């Protein structure tokens, strides 16, 4: 496709406009209160229309025998942009001398909420339009409520059609006082109320004599005062962890600083677990020198001094002013999806990068989608386009903030099926962690059946599993097993170690070290592990278990009963193990004091396809332990569909 440029033309536009940055505004209000007319006016009065456009529309109107209206301009623009493409335009740019603007989401959508939320959530400012004659109407309320939920704080109210009420100040003041009261309930305090006539162009770009009693700015003057939304820089640190990368020896924590700032050397605490470390470095590719600090809004990659277990979803903060944590949140939510959202049916709640199974445990009130009045009775369900106050219970603790305190970590979306169904903001957050205690007392209302494995898993917050650590004596099995046990315990995962030596003191005391006895030893350990996993524990089996067939047998035992099984090969070369020789066993085996010692006088059959291999001679204990912990956490994670089905059955839905 060839494009013609006119490179020789002398600059007429403001060449100092550095980038594409624009103030994004959304214009909302009740139907027929003048949205289209106002947009047409803004375009016209800022000379943002193509040349001849007004004349063209004026002529077309005359031919149709109609009076010219500015609303036609918008229609024409939309039509032009939408020509041959059956989609509605979402971005209408215009500019003033000061800067560029974009009007997001032109009015006229039937699918009001879904598209408007997507567009308006990124708006810097809003114009709430209200008819001077009609005053507050349904959508005047609903749109305002939505703006409050979306956290848009730069708002100007345009009281339109002043020409139809004789430019009377009393009428304007009446609307202002009524609407101020209503908006106040939503926590909205508009920066300005401006009496206008979009049709006649009064108080659009500058003060008009007809409305000389108005001492405030005209609409455009009010807009020019607004700021392009910048992330707040005076809030405590919230570092939202996206991922942990191990592309090389570095263990890199990637995430975004949603609020606050971060310095190399500072202590950082990760929630909801509360583990802490210090920031060792800020990694940046191609940087002349590594940064020592990072600011709000930056996507960064950091490394830590101490290797602590953190995972995606964690929120990092400074030691004080951390987020709240708990399993329950009180929120206001809006629902966009056709399928309604009922009580007690599980969904995925996403907050920051946390993603957790949750459900509504209480719907405090549902507001009628048209009147915004609370519905009578307790509906127990939230329908499309309704907004509601709810109590949500998550399967495991999450970190969060109150929306009015830190909005970035105080809002969430709800995913049902595979799509975002709605969003919400958190109204209450107990920063003393009392909520979790209160929530723990509440029991599940739908427990009816005998205790199945799934229900145990629900109680534990994870499922039972068997991790089978195999490797030579001295390869590091016991060290890793105990380390893992500790890490899992810290994370609230119930675990237990089955150690080969320990078993031989009791359950397997009658067994020797012949190939046959070794097999029986493994079989008993495997069956025991299966039972304990059935009971819901994560069983860490630490046995040399030199023979492939024996290990495969345990795998079969577990899989037969649907127990997740992970074979972990603790791999260290024989000479390294022998050099370590923590208990002097190799020395004794070499001296012939121990018969059939694996690696010396008895073979070790290395796993062919272990689920995890840890090379303890090549990597640090911290790193291998982290890999192992990560693996164990994943293995014990309850698969999403299983939860959903089980809960749905239990809830009788």
């Amino acid at each position, binding site marked *: 496709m060839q494009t013609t440029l006119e490179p020789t033309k002398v600059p007429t536009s403001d060449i100092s406009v550095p980038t594409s940055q624009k103030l994004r505004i959304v214009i909302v209000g009740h139907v027929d209160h003048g949205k289209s007319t106002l947009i047409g006016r803004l375009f016209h009065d800022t000379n943002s229309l193509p040349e001849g456009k007004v004349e063209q529309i004026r002529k077309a109107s005359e031919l149709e025998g109609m009076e010219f209206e500015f609303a036609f301009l918008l229609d024409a623009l939309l039509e032009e942009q939408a020509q041959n493409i059956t989609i509605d335009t979402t971005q209408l740019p215009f500019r003033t001398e000061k800067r560029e603007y974009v009007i997001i989401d032109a009015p006229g959508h039937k699918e009001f909420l879904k598209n408007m*939320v997507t567009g308006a959530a990124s708006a810097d400012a809003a114009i709430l339009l209200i008819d001077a004659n009609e005053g507050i109407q349904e959508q005047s309320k609903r749109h305002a409520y939505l703006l409050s939920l979306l956290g848009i704080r730069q708002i100007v109210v345009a009281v339109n059609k002043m020409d139809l009420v004789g430019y009377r100040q009393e009428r304007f003041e009446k609307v202002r006082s009524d609407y101020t009261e209503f908006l106040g309930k939503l926590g909205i305090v508009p920066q300005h109320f401006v009496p206008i006539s979009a049709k006649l162009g009064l108080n659009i770009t500058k003060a008009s004599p007809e409305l000389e009693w108005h001492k405030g700015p005209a609409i455009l003057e009010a807009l020019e005062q607004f700021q392009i939304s910048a992330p707040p820089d005076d809030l405590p640190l919230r570092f939202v962890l996206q991922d942990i990368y191990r592309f090389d020896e570095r263990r890199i924590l990637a995430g975004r600083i949603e609020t606050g700032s971060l310095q190399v050397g500072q202590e950082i605490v990760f929630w909801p677990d509360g583990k802490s470390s210090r920031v060792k470095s800020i990694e940046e590719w191609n940087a002349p020198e590594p940064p020592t600090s990072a600011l709000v809004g930056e*996507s960064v990659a950091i490394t830590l001094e101490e290797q602590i277990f953190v995972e995606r979803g964690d929120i990092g903060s400074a030691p004080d002013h951390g987020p709240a944590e708990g399993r329950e949140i009180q929120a206001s939510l809006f629902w966009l999806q056709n399928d309604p959202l009922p009580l007690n049916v599980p969904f995925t709640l996403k907050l920051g990068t946390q993603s957790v199974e949750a459900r509504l445990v209480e719907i405090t009130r549902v507001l009628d989608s048209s009147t915004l009045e609370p519905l009578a009775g307790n509906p127990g369900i939230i329908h499309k386009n309704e907004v509601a106050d709810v109590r949500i219970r998550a399967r495991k603790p999450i970190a969060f903030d109150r929306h009015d305190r830190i909005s970035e970590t105080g809002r969430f979306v709800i995913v049902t099926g595979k799509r975002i169904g709605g969003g919400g903001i958190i109204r209450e957050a107990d920063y003393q962690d009392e909520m979790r205690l209160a929530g723990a007392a509440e029991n599940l209302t739908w427990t009816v059946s005998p205790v199945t494995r799934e229900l145990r898993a629900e109680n534990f917050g994870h499922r039972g599993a068997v991790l089978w650590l195999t490797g030579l004596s001295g390869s590091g099995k016991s060290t890793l097993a105990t380390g893992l046990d500790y890490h899992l315990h810290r994370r609230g995962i119930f675990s237990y170690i089955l150690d080969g030596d320990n078993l031989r003191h009791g359950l397997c005391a009658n067994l020797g070290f012949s190939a046959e006895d070794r097999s029986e030893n493994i079989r008993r350990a495997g069956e025991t592990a299966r039972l304990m996993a059935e009971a819901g524990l994560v069983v860490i089996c630490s046995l040399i278990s030199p023979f492939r067939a024996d290990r495969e047998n345990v795998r079969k035992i577990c899989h037969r009963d649907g127990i997740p099984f992970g074979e972990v090969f603790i791999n260290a070369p024989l000479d390294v193990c022998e050099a370590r020789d923590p208990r002097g066993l190799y020395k004794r085996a070499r001296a012939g004091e121990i018969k059939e010692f694996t690696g010396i006088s008895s073979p070790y059959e290395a796993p062919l396809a272990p689920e995890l291999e840890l090379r303890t001679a090549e990597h640090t204990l911290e790193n291998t332990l982290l890999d192992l912990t990560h693996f164990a956490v994943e293995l014990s994670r309850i698969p999403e569909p299983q939860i959903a089905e089980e809960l749905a059955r239990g809830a009788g839905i």
Partner: protein
Amino acid sequence: MDHLDQLEAQSVYILREAYHSFSNLCMPWSMGKDSNVLIWLSKKAFCGKIPYPVLHIDTTYEFPEMLEFREWARKEYDLDLIVKINEDARAGRGTYTQSVGYETHDPVTVTHELKTVALQQVMAERKFDALITGIRRDEDPTRAKERYFSPRNAEFEWDYKDQPPEFWNQFTTAIEPGEHIRVQPLLDWAEVDIWRYIEREKIPIPTMYFARPGDDGKKYRFRSLGCWPITKPVESTASNISEIIAELLVTKTSERAGRAQDHHERNAMQKLRAKGFM
């Protein structure tokens, strides 16, 4: 943070979300300016390591200079590069009864067969569940309503009338079997932002973007790069990035005029995109 910093931070955030969300991610790479910005942002997002394959759909009508650039960049960036050609279409075998090319077919057909179909072939072969694309909202009206994470069905179709909501940086990451997600980290960037970023970061790009003397004594440069039979240079004296940016700002009005192409071309874009073109 200035505006470019903000755009960069958001794109990096999106790339990292994509890498986390999908197990088999791929980044088509045209070697054009936007595409090279994406490579650069990927290096930044993952601290120097691009953890997904980069895909060049080779139409066999590539400018030699572009292929040179490809090989240079493959080494320079340590790319896991996949080069895909719709061999059947070029050779006129398989489902093709004759060779498809600009010599014999119209540009819409050729673009569809050698780009979109080639992409579909490689998607089927490699089972990618998400593609990172470099499209921008300001490029074309059909792209204005795009999402950062935009689902495509098994036929590559885009259901623009019923798109999932996307707000507060929460994206559509779950897909049905056969679906894939288009991840579009540059959606909010404007053409001028791309150039300013290339200038700021000193990102290598093919030199065909800069003005060179033509046979008629005038100077020309390429404003976008595609297959050589249908990509024509524009008259321009911009020989460095600052001059290109200055040119863009000056020619703002004619740029809009350029976008309002004749109906054949407008239809062409829509037709291509409806069938899975980026």
